[in-house]
């Protein structure tokens, strides 16, 4: 095994271990922190694949945005140190069985599938290429999804304010 393989297995073990802790721990605040560790591990996997831009987006949006949002909502809706009730055995056992069976089934298909080989072009997703394609109106450009996503973000912004807005008592009477 060379160094790169050892690093891959370390990253994989880190992501899966923290992911399992995130879905099994009984304290909700700890679950959020384990999720944060798992997302940082996924960012390091992107670094391992030489995709610095995606890794940076992963850290900025997921670790800096979504996990902070989740932690805020934990503080707003419940006492952070409280233990959640332990999940029933009649619920965890079928769930674990179904997940393990589906995992074994998918892994079996994957290990016997021949993906074919890639062309010999070197994969080079530098920032110039991504930026040019993002705002390109021609062939292979992504201007339409870019604009659509910007409209979606605006709609989500307004929708969040409308849903979470508190209506005062005087206005309702």
């Amino acid at each position, binding site marked *: 095994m060379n160094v790169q*393989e050892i690093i*891959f297995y370390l990253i994989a073990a880190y*992501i899966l271990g923290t*992911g*399992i802790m*995130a*879905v099994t721990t009984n304290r*909700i605040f700890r679950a*959020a922190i384990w*999720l944060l560790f*798992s*997302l940082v591990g*996924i960012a390091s*996997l*992107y670094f391992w*694949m*030489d*995709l610095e*831009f*995606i890794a940076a987006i*992963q850290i900025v949006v*997921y670790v800096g*945005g*979504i996990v902070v*949002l*989740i932690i805020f*909502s934990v503080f*707003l*809706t*419940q006492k952070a140190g409280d233990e*959640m*009730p332990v*999940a029933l055995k009649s*619920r*965890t056992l079928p769930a674990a069985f179904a*997940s*393990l069976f589906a*995992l074994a089934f*998918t*892994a079996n298909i*994957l290990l016997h599938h021949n*993906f*074919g080989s*890639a*062309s010999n072009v*070197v*994969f080079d*997703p530098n920032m110039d290429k*991504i930026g040019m*394609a993002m705002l390109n109106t021609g062939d292979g450009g*992504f201007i339409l*999804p870019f604009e659509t*996503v910007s409209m*979606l*973000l605006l709609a*989500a912004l307004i929708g*969040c*304010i409308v*849903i*979470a807005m508190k209506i005062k008592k005087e206005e309702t009477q």
Partner: protein
Amino acid sequence: MMPIGLTHIILLSTALFFIGVYGFFTRRNLITILMSIELMLNSVNINFVAFNKYLYPQNIDGIFFSIFIITIAAAEAAVAIAIIINLYRSHNSIDVEEANEMKY
């Protein structure tokens, strides 16, 4: 032993996806269900990027799919948390078992 390639990364993302599925089945708190969904979305992102890198290195479409999925996941998390806070105001609880007015 095979050199590390596409199969290893897809196996990792499959395992992560089914960890998310397990959490989705067992949790009864809306915030933890949201966390499980985030794990599943992340495993999908790993798949897109890995297929792009190892099978079609001449294109960068998989990277764009990942970028747009991350954007939409952020919007989805924000809307979900607004709904959770609204539900907490009306029910004083975010347990899915207690929000059952539309069940019957």
